[in-house]
């Protein structure tokens, strides 16, 4: 499992970067960044080919993407710590044109439609490129997502992989309390996807799931990525309000220590 050891190292580094980014201004989407770190590690260091596309619909999860892009050498940490600051291009919800971000996500519910367009375009070109789109579970409450699901299935887009960030929280509280979206895999299956629930904080599960997705023919795939917001920093995992974290500097410093301790414990 040398491959997974490498991915584990990447995931840990992504988590460290997420904390460093939030520490700059004392706030940010740390919960999402930590919860998605394993998925990002597999995506960016195992799955995505040079001609593939990653579409971030959930714009405010950009922190996870920036951290992965830093790990790949696309951004310096010196710049990433300006996350969310005036004048910084490291925006909490970036627009199309920011390096590494193919679309303007963040007006939630829209990204999958653009991923469908990319998948149609790549299939028309005939190059075999694949398209990965990350939406959040709360985002599934937007009707446009389901329009896009219908289109993806109708056009048999087996070059499209929908990744649902199933973190069970949204701005106003728990998804199950605001407007339940489960059972997500069953609903996506009914819409024509090959769908599977995975533990997105277990690297081997994520790697297996992507291999499974590559084997599907004639329909789009969906990985419902169960994950724990704040994963890797126990004191964050326990927070009730982890959708957006504001904390004093010592909390972020402590989070880095916790991260390293958790990693050693593994």
């Amino acid at each position, binding site marked *: 499992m040398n491959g997974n050891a490498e991915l584990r190292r990447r995931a840990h580094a992504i988590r460290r970067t997420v904390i460093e980014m939030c520490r700059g201004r004392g706030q940010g989407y740390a919960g999402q960044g930590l919860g998605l770190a394993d998925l990002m590690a597999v995506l960016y260091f195992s799955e995505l080919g040079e001609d593939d*596309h990653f579409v971030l619909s959930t714009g405010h999860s950009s922190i996870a993407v920036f951290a992965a892009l830093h790990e790949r050498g696309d951004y310096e940490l010196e710049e990433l710590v300006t996350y969310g600051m005036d004048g910084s291009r490291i925006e909490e919800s970036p627009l*199309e044109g920011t390096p590494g971000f193919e679309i303007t996500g963040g*007006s939630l519910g829209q990204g999958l439609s*653009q991923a469908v*367009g*990319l998948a149609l*375009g790549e299939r028309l*070109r005939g190059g075999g490129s694949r398209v990965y789109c990350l939406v959040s579970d709360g985002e599934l409450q937007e009707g*446009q997502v389901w329009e896009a699901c219908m289109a993806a299935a109708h056009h048999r887009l087996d070059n499209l992989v929908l990744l649902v960030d199933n973190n069970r929280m949204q701005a106003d509280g728990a998804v199950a309390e605001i407007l339940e979206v489960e059972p997500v895999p069953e609903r996506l299956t009914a819409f024509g996807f090959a769908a599977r629930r995975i533990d997105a904080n277990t690297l081997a599960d994520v790697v297996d799931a992507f291999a499974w997705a590559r084997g599907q023919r004639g329909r789009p795939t969906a990985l419902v990525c169960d994950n724990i917001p704040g994963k890797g920093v126990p004191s964050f995992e326990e927070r009730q309000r982890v959708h957006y974290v504001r904390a004093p500097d010592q909390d972020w410093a402590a989070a880095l220590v916790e991260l390293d301790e958790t990693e050693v414990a593994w």
Partner: protein
Amino acid sequence: MSALAVQELVEAPFARALTALGRAREDVVVLSADLSKYTDVLPFADEFPDRFFQVGMAEANMMGIAGGLAKAGYLPIAVTYGVFATRRAYDQVAMALATGPSRAIVVAFLPGITTPFRATHQAIDDVALMRALPGMTVIDPADATEVDAALGFAVSEPGPVYIRGLRGRVARLFDPVGFRLEPRELQSGGTVGVVATGLATGWALEAAAAIDGGASVLHVPVLKPFPAAQVAAFCSRFDRVVSVENHSISGGLGSAVAETLAEGGMAVRLRRLGVPDQWAPAGSLDYIRHELGLDADGIAEALR
């Protein structure tokens, strides 16, 4: 004394222009949300089935898919009715097509009061909405020649473009030979200046012919970027200017003229004609024009 008359009726000028563009450019793809029959798109779909995407009755999704196709390197042309392209899918047009650097063209049919269905189908606010989007080019063609020219103009633009479409048999007013899509003074004379756009340019010409001494008529096909210098120069010759548009008087041509006059510090009285601040009635185009004071008599009355 109008310099312009209907030269001929052209069958589906948009269909012709779109198909010709498809032959000229392999990167052009066309999308429809269950209105291909009614927006003159079928000839393109028949000739280029691989480059035509039927997305069903889902305009928001269509604009997103268009955005994705743009990111894949294509030039998407999303075609639907004006109300659905703007009110229904405004956020999608803004986010997927207009935040750049990729871009697409939206062609929106049934402009203004050209449909008997009332508030549901009459796009009386589409120009206002599209004008408000940063970087969006907005075109309201007056005839078959401008429908064709608008598509060519849109392709040559670097950013997103919104074109009001005219379907079926469309009158040709302008000679297509050497035609450029730009403001043009169609007739000169009289003591009142008329600034018009889209189908309302024809309405303005009818009215100008009906009044003693006539009127000067400036036709403005591109509403954004607004040709403020040409409009200001034209308006400066008159004490009184009337704008005429197939759109609400709020946010469209009349507003653009008002902004131009005010920002230029010009002492010109402006009267805005178009759909007033109300939902237009149902009925034939002639009937609705009459009810809103946009028939020749109604506009002539305002010019006198």
